[in-house]
């Protein structure tokens, strides 16, 4: 499971969803694996406003990853500023900045291979096995 997915999941229990403590889920006993994938700059730029930055900072800290910048990057931060003059009318190919590469690495390439995701509200633990988190609830919780 990619770390970006933690931005879009919470506890599966209906009673937890209204509680702020249920988001984000907290990875525990996690084994991480980096799975490389192509960087898509347009995608990264457009997804910025969807990221719950403070929560992502919490998750990366809990996983012992290098800290994210304290404030979210802007669209401009993701692009290397063109050097010198760009010829009139020429469409310069945008180049991903180090910030973009770092963001891509942490959100889209860093995955939880094994471990648990714990709800901060009810304490329920969801297992992650072979990179797949399982959100099925036991019968007594449904």
């Amino acid at each position, binding site marked *: *499971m990619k770390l970006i*997915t933690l931005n*879009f999941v*919470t506890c599966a229990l*209906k009673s937890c969803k209204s509680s702020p403590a249920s988001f984000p889920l907290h990875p525990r006993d996690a084994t991480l694996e980096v799975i490389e994938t192509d960087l898509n700059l347009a*995608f990264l730029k457009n997804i910025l406003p969807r990221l719950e930055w403070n929560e992502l900072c919490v998750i990366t800290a809990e996983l012992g990853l290098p800290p994210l910048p304290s404030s979210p990057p802007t669209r401009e931060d993701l692009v290397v500023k063109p050097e010198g003059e760009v010829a009139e009318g020429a469409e310069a190919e945008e180049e991903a900045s180090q910030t973009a590469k770092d963001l891509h690495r942490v959100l889209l390439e860093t995955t939880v291979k094994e471990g648990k995701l714990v709800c901060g509200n009810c304490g329920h633990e969801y297992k992650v096995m072979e990179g797949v988190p399982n959100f*099925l*609830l036991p019968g007594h919780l*449904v």
Partner: protein
Amino acid sequence: MTDAEQQGAAYEEEHVHAVYEQIASHFSATRYKPWPIIERFLKELPDGAVGADVGCGNGKYLTVNPRVFMVASDRSTNLVKIAKQHQPHDSIVADIMNLPHPKHSFDFAISIAVIHHISTPERRIEAVKAILELLRPPSAEKPGSGGRALIYVWALEQKDSRRGWDEGNEQDVMVPWVMRAKKEKEGKKGKGKDQKATELSNEADQPLEQPQDKTFLRYYHLYRKGELEQIIGEAGGEVVEAGYDKDNWWAIATRQS
């Protein structure tokens, strides 16, 4: 959960979930070509759009648009393991009735050939509600600007299909999935390979272990004309576009508020 809901859930566990878990890899080998309407819906999305594929199966719709991000979910762990290979998306095991997503967090959702496996009218409405709840609501100034969901279900009216069901027939049916023992190379007979209606005759492309044919029965609720739209309405959604495509009813729905 009420008794009826509990019975519905238990019934689906036995006659849907357990079956897919067993036929996963064989089923997946027959599911590779996206349907055009679904392909169009996914390709029209802006780069960076975020969506859910509820009941993703083997994840065949995760290959359509790599410029969006989809969190795909399915009840079957074996199918999710197949789906998770599709970059840049991600796949999780989850139940449509208890999806682990924050409300209103997605720009779009698809649920293809899923809610025809739900066995009571109340649960069908609940399932559509669960899909609609994922979507961004429309902004006050721009009605219709909210997230959109594309839903596909198998149609009762398919008299020209191999199954031949039509108006007036029983809507709740058990449909066999046959895993054939490899006796001779028959190929796929070229019958609209990607359609539900060919399932009975699907030959696996890969050799199978089973020495004998094995039949699994899956529960389906076949939707009458207008039934999908009605359920979407009862779930608090609004139908933006709807139609009939290759033995299926489909609808694009949005939230009313």
